[in-house]
């Protein structure tokens, strides 16, 4: 056996390329995922989201009582609401409901409304945005004028007006908040699609003989989705807050004992002097959930487009 160097045989390992580039050949999404994992904000946000989603999903298992149950009704006095105890870790509410159980069931109600309304807004916005961005011309004009018109009313007032027409129910809240989001998504998607249309790869695809529809649907649209996904994540925070606001105003229907964060705050405002914790807990839940979605959304934005990072 000699130690002299020899030419590479077919079974020898290939020498490592000089200066390995970890970002070479990776897709935007994989790069984004890598940046996301390094971002502490993303981790905190994701942890909060996962936690609340788990609580919402496992509500029947986690909650000591049913959301509507009033296990402590006998202990309630007009000037006294029992605080935390072994039976009721966070104490009781005005009607004798277990605060912890209501918060847990409330997570389910609030997150469901938030997610459903954002999905609705996203679907509507995608439809209108693609319509405007793909067809251009008068379709674009008409869609965008309508979008401008709807955006000329402050969002909460718009949601309130819509909920007033549909009636007072969680369904009305979902539709109202979703409808308010439609113009935001539509305008965003149209804008990014228009910017993409001028790109060289579109020209290349067109000159290869692909139809306009194919280019729009399988090239321009997927490339325009990044900002929309970021916006949707941030919008989940807004949706949870606005859902709570509509319920707070009483548009979510149900009774005063309904386990929903916004509704719980409505009742709690009369007990501010007797039991402030009744307002603090649901309020904190709304704020923390919104914080989770906001942190994750911001991190996602930075990951997809490092240039936008707020230094």
């Amino acid at each position, binding site marked *: 056996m000699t130690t002299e160097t020899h030419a590479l045989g077919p079974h020898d390992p290939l020498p490592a390329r000089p200066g390995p580039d970890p970002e070479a050949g990776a897709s935007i999404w994989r790069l984004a995922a890598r940046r996301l994992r390094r971002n502490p904000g993303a981790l905190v946000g994701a942890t909060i989201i996962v936690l609340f989603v788990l609580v919402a999903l496992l509500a029947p298992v986690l909650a000591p009582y049913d959301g509507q149950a009033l296990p402590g009704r006998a202990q309630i006095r007009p000037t006294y609401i029992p605080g935390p105890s072994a039976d009721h870790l966070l104490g009781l509410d005005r009607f004798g409901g277990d605060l912890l159980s209501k918060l847990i069931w409330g997570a389910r109600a609030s997150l469901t409304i938030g997610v459903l309304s954002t999905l609705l807004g996203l679907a509507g916005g995608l439809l209108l945005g693609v319509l405007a961005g793909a067809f251009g011309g008068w379709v674009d004009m008409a869609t965008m004028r309508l979008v401008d018109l709807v955006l000329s009313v402050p969002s909460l*007032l718009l949601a*309130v*007006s819509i909920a007033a027409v549909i009636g007072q129910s969680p369904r009305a809240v979902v539709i109202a908040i979703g409808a308010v989001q439609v113009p935001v998504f539509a305008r965003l998607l149209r804008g990014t699609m228009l910017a993409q249309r001028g790109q060289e790869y579109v020209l290349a695809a067109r000159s290869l003989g692909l139809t306009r529809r194919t280019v729009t649907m399988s090239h321009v649209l997927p490339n325009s989705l990044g900002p929309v996904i970021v916006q949707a994540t941030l919008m989940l925070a807004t949706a949870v807050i606005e859902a709570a*606001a509509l319920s707070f105003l009483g548009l979510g229907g149900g009774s005063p004992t309904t386990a929903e964060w916004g509704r719980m705050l409505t009742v709690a405002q009369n007990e501010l*002097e007797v039991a402030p914790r009744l*307002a603090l807990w649901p*309020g904190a839940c709304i*704020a923390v959930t*919104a*914080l989770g979605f906001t942190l994750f959304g911001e991190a996602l934005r930075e990951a997809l487009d490092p240039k936008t990072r707020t230094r």
Partner: protein
Amino acid sequence: MLRLVLQRLALLVPTLLGLSVLLFLWVRALPGGPATALLGERATPAEVARVNALYGFDRPLPEQYLTWLGQLLQGNFGVSTRTGTPVLQEFWLRFPATIELTLMALLFAVGVGIPLGYLAARHQGRALDHVTVGVSLLGVTIPVFFLAFLLKWVFAVQLGLLPSAGRLSSSMIATHPTNFYVLDGLLTREWDAAWDALQHLVLPAVALGSIPLAIIARITRASVIEVQNADYVRTARAKGLRPSRLRRRVVLRNAMLPVATTIGLQVGLLLSGAVLTETVFAFNGIGSFLATAIFSLDYAVLQGFILFIAVIYALANLAVDVSYGLIDPRMRAR
């Protein structure tokens, strides 16, 4: 400059016309239609028919719309079905309260937000900067009505420093020529009334202004940081411009454009938030009136107020465009 203002005002016309069509159709979509909204759900068909004939709800839709539009243009916004008073009268009674509240909130947001963002940018990476970033993050995630609760609980209930509800103490007797209570107190030289009204404004204004404050601080910070690193700032520094002058005339001025846009965008947020804040603080403005109007389906009030608010919103955006011209001379030339 004048041309810009006129152009923008002209653009307002189609927007408002479009909005009036939407609002008109919206009232017709209300459960039971306008007649039921007027009479309540227990109305008999005969009563409904009578009201329909009386108010012309049985006429063809385009005709109804034109009639309604004509009335609007004459300043007739209909009568509140709940209180029986003309909408316009209710509006003049409550509108000043909301304007007072939103102006105070905006003042607080701008007055604290811009310096905070600016200082954070100048001391980037240090404690003040981290605090500002944290505050601006919290500001966008706390629901305005919850913040209102917190402030009310801490400063009114626990500490008893400020009044918790209303616009004026019930013991205070004052005259109100304009319905802007602070202004009234100053005009009539009832200083204690002005002071009392001002105290009632503090908590709602801080609650309402906090979210815009967070957003303004954040944008100011980002904008100042960007301008600080711009080439023209380095050039200005290199040619020996005094630092104080550099900061005021070059950095701050150039950084203000995105901030002006942001402030304009906050007006919608303020008007939305006013509904919630006024409800929590029992502040008798258009916000809390609107909240009650929703439940009684007081459609004339809703219709009129949404139009009013859209006009204010549009005018605020106009003001932002004009402020561009003031900040950036290049915009004036266009």
